[in-house]
């Protein structure tokens, strides 16, 4: 089943390849940063960035109200998918070397921040993907609920409910970790 984001992208043809190349030049850094904030590693963020624009070429969207919001949304969704794949892989092969993103931060990064990043990535991978995407777009990328809704094909109210649900789930995961 298609997600609303990609369904809307595929529904209307229009953007020519040259336009997509121009979009990549203009918004490539926006997309990379959006992916990196979630994933924290160069290689994974590059893969997501490239997949975002490859998908645009394969299924060019027609009318997009806000390209930064749209592209950030797709990058977020792909980043969440990446975290979920990573989690599944770890569950399947717990004894194998973990596929953690390579650290781009300085070695002096404080332990508290590193732990916060580890927790958030692991917890986001466990959420409903749509809720996780809404939460990341709202709290990590700072997008307004209306912009998130437009990009995801959801009502503003639906976005707020998703963000709230994600928050409750994250709090529950955090409480469970603390109780161990």
């Amino acid at each position, binding site marked *: 089943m298609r997600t609303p984001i990609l369904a809307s992208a595929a529904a209307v043809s229009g953007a020519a390849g040259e336009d997509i190349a121009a979009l990549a030049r203009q918004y490539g850094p926006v997309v990379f940063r959006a992916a990196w904030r979630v994933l924290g590693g160069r290689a994974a963020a590059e893969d997501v960035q490239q997949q975002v624009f*490859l998908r645009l070429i394969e299924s060019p969207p027609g009318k997009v109200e806000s390209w930064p919001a749209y592209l950030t949304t797709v990058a977020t969704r792909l980043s969440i998918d990446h975290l979920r794949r990573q989690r599944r892989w770890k569950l399947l092969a717990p004894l194998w070397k973990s596929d953690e993103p390579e650290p781009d931060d300085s070695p002096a990064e404080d332990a508290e921040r590193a732990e916060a990043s580890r927790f958030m990535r692991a917890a986001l991978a466990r959420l409903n993907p749509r809720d996780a995407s809404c939460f990341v777009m709202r709290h990590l990328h700072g997008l307004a609920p209306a912009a998130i809704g437009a990009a995801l094909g959801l009502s503003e109210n639906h976005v707020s409910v998703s963000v709230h649900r994600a928050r409750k789930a994250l709090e529950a995961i955090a409480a469970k970790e603390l109780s161990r």
Partner: protein
Amino acid sequence: MNSLDRTLELFAMREPDLALVNGAQHKLEALVAARVSTAAARRPVRAARGWLAAAATAAVVAVAMLWLPFGSAPVLAFAKIQEHFRDFRTLRFDVEQRMDGRLVMESRVSVTYDGNVRTDVGDDVTVIVNSTERRVLTLMHRSHVAIPSPLDKPATKEDALAWLDDIRDFQGEAKALPKARWIRGQRAQGWQLATAAGEIVLWANDEGLPLEMSLGSSTPIQLSFDFEFNPSLDAKYFSTEIPAGYSRGESED
């Protein structure tokens, strides 16, 4: 502030270094250029040139630039160079892209006479256009993701011949450079071509075998090509089957 807010604040304060952003951007632009050209080759109007259009897909800059010297030289000696481009079974060339002298991208392009093209962009990405199978496969090596897609326009002999006619009829001007060079142990004659894409300098040996080509010497972005004609290229090299260990990437969820 509760515990989750604090965790989120710490998580959200991280931003990538500019060098990481710029490095990713260079790779992205090269990949998009290659794939945009692939998509263009599938459109009926542009696909009229048959397998050359398919060839141009994966090697966007490289093959497009390679194409230019074909029709730009009325000089008899230069015609020998054209013959090599015209009659090859396989062709492989390495492309270096420099920005103000700094190397920013390396790629290797392999082409067969019947329209299969494989482009390896650094160690990160491979794009394979297989005209026989009418499929395109993009491999993202680090994440072991393979994205297959159809090549809608089939290659035909007629199209290929039309392309050859285009080349033969093309009129232009090639200027022989006064000084020879030695390239890989061979004496090479230089040819300077003024084209719409800018100045091209092509070096070929005494038999007219093209060895090197450079573009954009007077612009911030320079491209250099290192040619090898008729190397042995296994058919597996152009396979669009998803390799073992790669997962299938989907265009749509």
